[in-house]
C-alpha cells in the first residue's frame, strides 16, 4: 500500500491536534491535543522506518515518547500550580499580559 495513506492519516491527526490547541479553552484538553500532535508525528516516523527498513525511525519514536512523558509531567505540575492561584483552568482567564 502506498505510503501516501499513512502520510494523509498522519497529517489529518496533526491538523486535528493543532485545531484542538487553538480552539479549546480547557488547559488540560489543550495538552491532550498536544499529545495527539506528537502521536501523529510518531506515526509518520514509524511508517517511513518501515519503508526504508531502517531502525532509526523507531528509535526516534522511542525518544519522543520519553521526552513527551517528561514534558507532560512538568506541564501538569505547572497546571496544578496555576490552578492553585487562579482557581480555574480556563486559559482565557490567564490574560494578564495584555495591553
Amino acid at each position: 500500500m502506498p505510503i501516501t495513506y499513512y502520510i494523509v492519516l498522519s497529517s489529518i491527526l496533526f491538523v486535528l491536534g493543532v485545531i484542538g490547541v487553538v480552539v479549546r479553552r480547557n488547559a488540560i484538553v489543550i495538552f491532550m491535543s498536544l499529545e495527539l500532535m506528537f502521536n501523529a508525528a510518531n506515526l509518520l516516523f514509524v511508517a517511513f522506518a518501515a519503508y526504508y527498513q531502517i531502525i532509526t525511525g523507531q528509535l526516534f519514536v522511542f525518544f519522543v515518547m520519553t521526552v513527551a512523558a517528561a514534558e507532560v509531567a512538568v506541564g501538569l505540575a505547572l497546571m496544578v500550580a496555576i490552578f492553585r492561584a487562579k482557581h480555574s483552568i480556563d486559559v482565557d482567564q490567564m490574560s494578564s499580559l495584555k495591553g
Partner: protein
Amino acid sequence: MPVIQIVIFAILGLVAVGTAVGMLLSRNAVYAALFLVLNFATIAILYLILGAPFIALAQITVYAGAIMVLFLFVIMLLGVEKLPFKERLRGQRLIAILLGVVFLGEAVLYLVYRGQAGQLPLPDAIQFVSPAELGRVLFSQYMLPFEITSIILLAALVGAIVLTHHDKPTPAAEQI
C-alpha cells in the same frame, strides 16, 4: 496489494480520526481523555502493522497507561469544570478550522506531490523489528541520547515536585 490490508488500514484510520474528533468536541474533560486513550490504542495497532512491536507496546504502556492516567489524575484533582461553549474571541473557531484545512491541504500536497512520496509502496512483507535489535542499536550507537534522556527525566521529576510543593509552616510560626 492485498485488499484486506487496505480495509484494515481504513478501519483503523477511521477510528483514529473519529476518536480524535471526539476528543476535540467533548465538553467533558474525562470523556476527552478517554477518547484519546482509544486513539492511542489505535495507533499502537498501526505500529504493530508497520512492524514495530516494541514501539507499539511502549505506546500502550507509556502513553495510554502512564501519561493518560496522569491526565486523569490531574482532571480529578482540579475539578472537572464545564467551561461555557460560547467562544469569547470572535472568529477564532472559524479561522482555526479554515487554517487547519489549508494546512492539511498544503501538507499533503507538499509531502505527496513535491516530495514524490506518492508512489512509494511499502513492502508487502514488513520486517518485524525485534526488541533485541532495538536495544542493541540503542545501547551502542545512540548511547548519548539515551543518557541525556535519563537526565531529562530527572529534570522533569525535580521540576514536577518543585512546582507543586507546598511550603509547610515552621513549628515556630505555628506557636505564634
